[in-house]
């Protein structure tokens, strides 16, 4: 798609994306990222028990029709618009605030076009881009804030064909989610016509229920936070060991339980 923003801004955005893409998601995040038996990196998406059960592949009640990818969220209110919201298994319980069933899947992020929204330069470029949109004033000066954000961020990701936005958590829990450390991903699922698609994101392979959390969360701070109802029995949570345990469960087709 041809950009309507000034060519210099367009070039800067392309350059920033190219730089993050050359770095690659693995090096961008660092750390010992757990992998599948097949060597691919593992990602986790927490969902409610009702829908997590569809990804159960072992035991009583194992699903006979496991979805082939991870669900794409289309509702307004998701940080970077329509996409598949996951975390690398580096941050094993970071998005557990959204449900007690952790669906783990493997993927190869090599070559993903990345937009690092944790980088202040990238952030400013996006804000500058948004300010040149013809509907910028209408989108930002009306009551439709969630719709406006969704529209603008979808448009930005389409314009620059961004496969993955890396961003810090923006709904927090003091025990499970670490704003300064954890990184969330909004991963694009493209249609044949080059648009953002809904459904199940097929980049994520062999999804299965691999972790169940003995915890409940409820919204707090007017929706910005998620308070643990039960709370961890011991602190701090050993995220590194937890990631290993969940990876082992995935690789042995079993389910790890994380007790509160």
């Amino acid at each position, binding site marked *: 798609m041809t950009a*309507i923003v000034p060519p210099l801004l367009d070039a800067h955005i392309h350059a920033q994306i190219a730089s993050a893409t050359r770095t690659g998601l693995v090096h961008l995040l660092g750390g010992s990222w757990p992998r599948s038996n097949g060597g691919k990196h593992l990602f986790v998406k927490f969902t409610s028990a009702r829908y997590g059960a569809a990804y159960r592949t072992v035991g009583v009640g194992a699903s006979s029709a496991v979805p082939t990818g991870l669900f794409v969220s289309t*509702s307004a209110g998701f940080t970077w618009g329509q996409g598949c919201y996951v975390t690398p298994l580096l941050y094993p319980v970071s998005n557990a605030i959204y449900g007690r069933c952790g669906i783990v899947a493997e993927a190869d992020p090599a070559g993903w076009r990345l937009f690092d929204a944790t980088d202040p330069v990238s952030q400013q470029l996006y804000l500058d881009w948004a300010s040149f949109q013809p509907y910028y004033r209408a989108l930002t000066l009306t009551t439709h804030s969630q719709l406006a954000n969704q529209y603008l961020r979808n448009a930005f990701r389409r314009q620059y064909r961004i496969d993955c936005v890396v961003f810090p958590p923006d709904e927090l829990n003091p025990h499970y989610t670490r704003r300064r450390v954890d990184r969330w991903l909004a991963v694009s699922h493209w249609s044949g016509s080059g648009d953002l698609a*809904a459904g199940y994101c097929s980049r994520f392979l062999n999804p299965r229920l691999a972790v169940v959390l003995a915890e409940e969360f409820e919204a707090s701070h007017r929706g910005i936070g998620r308070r643990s109802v039960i709370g961890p029995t011991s602190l701090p949570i050993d995220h590194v060991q937890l990631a290993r345990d969940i990876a082992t469960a995935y690789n042995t087709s079993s389910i790890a339980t994380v007790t509160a």
Partner: protein
Amino acid sequence: MNTALQLASDFIERAGNHAFGQEINEEYVLRWERLKLSGTPIATLGIADLSREDIGVLSLDAWLWLGSTLGVDDPEYPAPFVDALFKSTDDPIQRLRVADMSLRHPALAQRYAQLGEPQSLDECPQSWVKSWLLALTRQQEPMEGGIEEMAVLLLQVGNHPALRLLRALRRTRTDMVDGVIRTMRGISEDNFADFINRLRL
């Protein structure tokens, strides 16, 4: 009366109407995707037969969500129906969303890909936007703001069909379209021609 749609309306509202909140929306969208894994729910809804009289069955949000789920093999909302959706609101953001949804149907992208470069509105593949633009350009007393609104809207949507339609519109209403472009942030006389060339308008 579209009975199937009426029966499904509560479900579709919970999937698409933001008034239900993100968690409910997410739950029902997930249920919708699971339905699609085992069947063809779209085929039961009579999309191709929708008329102006069906507007009240769903909220605008729900219509927009349902329209955005239509794939390349699914029917498009009929042009008179989209026309009614567009005119059901004065809110510029909602009107943008209606046009955006209509311009992003994958079948429309295919028609433009197969056609090449239309030189006039008449040569453009059939769509609600084409019909509306033709109506606007042929009115003896042009609707105030109609062409300007559509020019901004097409620039914002910015996909291939939108820009081809804008080019065709510019050929018949050059001054109006150029007037809109000149008001855009970052556009000056120095770079106006470059902007036109870049977007192949």
